[in-house]
């Protein structure tokens, strides 16, 4: 969850979209091209001007191009059939998935940081338990309303947008893909700090589009 309804709507689409690969594995241009192929929609072709300037270009030109995105958008290049492309796309996603997801964990007052692989945990309870073991503390139980009220500590994470969120608010899979690093905040600071999650919870409850979040969670 991030700030603002726009991101929420975006998230809603992504969360409920049916496609290959892990949810939230980023819709790169290439994936767009592939999914476009599956739906028989064609991504934008280069204009003739662009093409004209490329044709007579010196050999170094391609190497110096800083933005790889336009290349990925060329329809039908390299010439691989959609079926093969799609099958391999899944494999790539799986390969990336299998590679592990290490994030730094800091704790207020601790001299150095730790690193954990989020992939090895099946869900929040396991993650929290691991954190408790690692730092020798009690975090307690998560409640939607009050966060980790019974504890001195609050586990938080920085998401892709740079916002600090409370661990446990979003579905596990979504957390996996949006979490960049973890920070275990100490009591007073944790309680006093207005986390974005509070505001967003409010929003999802009352906005007409935010319903999807709530419904999924209650299921």
């Amino acid at each position, binding site marked *: 969850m991030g700030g603002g309804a726009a991101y929420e709507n975006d998230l809603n689409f992504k969360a409920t979209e049916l496609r290959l690969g892990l949810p939230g594995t980023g819709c790169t241009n*290439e994936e767009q091209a592939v999914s*476009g*192929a599956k739906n*028989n929609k*064609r*991504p*934008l*072709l280069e*204009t*003739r*001007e662009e*093409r004209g300037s*490329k*044709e*007579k*270009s010196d*050999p170094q030109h*391609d190497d110096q*191009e800083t933005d*790889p995105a336009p*290349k*990925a958008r*060329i*329809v*039908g*290049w*390299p*010439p*691989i*059939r*959609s*079926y*093969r*492309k799609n*099958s*391999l796309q899944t*494999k*790539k996603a799986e*390969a990336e998935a299998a590679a592990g997801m290490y994030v730094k964990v800091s704790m207020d007052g601790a001299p150095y940081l730790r690193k954990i692989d989020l992939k090895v945990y099946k869900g929040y309870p396991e993650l929290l338990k691991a954190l408790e073991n690692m730092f020798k503390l009690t975090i307690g139980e998560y409640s939607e309303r009050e966060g980790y009220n019974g504890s001195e500590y609050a586990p938080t994470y920085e998401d892709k947008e740079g916002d600090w969120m409370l661990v446990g608010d979003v579905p596990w899979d979504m957390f996996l893909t949006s979490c960049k690093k973890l920070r275990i905040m100490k009591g007073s600071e944790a309680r006093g700090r207005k986390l974005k999650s509070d505001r967003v919870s409010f929003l999802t409850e009352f906005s007409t589009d935010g319903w999807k979040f709530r419904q999924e969670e209650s299921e």
Partner: protein
Amino acid sequence: MITNKKPRSSDTDSNYMRDDRTEMSEDDDRSPPSDSIANGSCPTRTCTPGSGSGSGSGSSSIPEYSAPYPDRVLENVLENVLWFLTSRKDRNAASLVCRSWYRVEAMTRSDLFIGNCYAVSPERATSRFTRVRSVTLKGKPRFADFNLMPPNWGAHFAPWVSATAKAYPWLEKIHLKRMSVTDDDLALLAESFSGFKELVLVCCDGFGTSGLAAVASKCRQLKVLDLIESEVSDDEVDWIMCFPDTETCLESLIFDCVECLVDFDALERLVVRSPSLKKLRLNRFVSIGQLYRLMVRAPQLTHLGTGSFSPSEDVAQGELELDYVSAFAACKSLVCLSGFREIVPDCLPAIYPVCANLTSLNFSYANISAEQLKPIISNCHKLQTFWVLDSICDEGLQAVATTCKELRELRVFPFDPREDIEGPVSEVGLQAISEGCRKLQSILYFCQRMTNAAVIAMSKNCPDLVVFRLCIMGRQRPDHVTGEPMDEGFGAIVMNCKKLTRLAVSGLLTDTAFAYIGKYGKIVRTLSVAFAGDSDMGLKYVLEGCPRLQKLEIRDSPFGDTALLSGLHHYYNMRFLWMSACRLSHQGCQQIAQALPHLVVEVIKHEDTVHMDDYADTLYMYRSLAGRRHDVPKFVSIL
């Protein structure tokens, strides 16, 4: 009365061309210099009118019991002889001798091959050839596979299935490539042909499991049901269950491209009651444990597609403990192995027992490393066909080169088909293959970087090359060592490989490369060009220099009207010409259409292109006796 006219010189059937369709070959090597419809009305041929000039109106109907006249005796003899003539080219030549031969050839042709479904109308084909037992149809041009053709362009099977249903109720075999097939078409097929035996659909779409169900349930003599790289929609009908409960005649069941679950128990029972089954290629929804059960039931298999080759999620533990090695060892006739769609590398050693006998191995969906490949490939001494992912790297290719001395066909596909990355295979792998696999005939090689030197080496080391397709994925990449264009490499290929009939070029190429192709590529039939050339001269060299050229597909290259016009003398000899994102104007295309009335000139418009100029998006033109087709979609204009 029988005028003997000299038959048109036909291509000599080179003896390396295999007549039987190999399991994985996507090429069609057999194409006559002109269409399969070889009658006298070809404008460029100097067929003087005589008693033998075929007016093209189909075979004249000779009443069955007319009074015998001298020709008839000869015709009876001819009939008996011509039955034995199987080669299409020979038959086309025979049909041109005189009217009598034309008639008899038409009566005795049992395999009808239509290389372009729009080149002739179904009615015309069925009225000329009256005793056909097998129909092969090809539809869309190859570039349609890469989304360069908007959907719903055409190539519908429907008019063909209705025409053949009426004309050939005894039809046994239908082989379609790149056609649009609907469930209704399949239902009609199943209804109409009581003795139907073989259905092969390659790169087709438009149908689903309900169509398959119709075929499975009604075609009681079915021996072959092969679905290869086709798109099959999931209609939630379990078509495997629709096969009759009795023993079947099935010899080949290939459904590795079908992206939906089949009921495994039904599949197992089907295999059990199909004692003639030799070829079975499973889809990725079949786990390795299920594969085991099937292999145990069918040790007589010669061709096996292993499905996912990984344990299913729920019963993982039990599956890993099965004795796969024994199962493979029991399949003593296994020569062709494919599948491995979701391979767990730990399972790979199971195939050791069959490696020594394998002639064909397809790892092109298996993301394995060189280390994982080596123990397998080092046993595959008889391997002739090998498809693989570039995940094996140059090192893996070196291992292949060391062992596979009998290799005829190699395809190296990219795991990550992007342009701007390093890439695991390069000229090193190509060089190694050229040195180790001297009998190589066909290669498809995707890479990120290449050198002229390696390509030249291959041209010298592998003189038997018939198909050379190199795809340097970065557009217009030069030789990465010298910085020069790739002209010399491809030039060496056409110069040194005297048997070369199919060529696909890539990398930075100037007009010089095309000059080489025009000068030396005298038997090239299929040429594929992308992002190459400097000027019209490039295309001119090819059109003027390659007399055997039949299929030319070009994209994103700076060839314009002048070049297009330089091929007027040749277009009737070609199956098709495709040019997309080149510099052709509508006027230029119009000129061609006017000059060649038997050419169908389609200009295909792509909706998303930003039109900066008057260039035609895509030109697709082909000779045809049928004239403009009646199923033209909005985005196509026929000039």
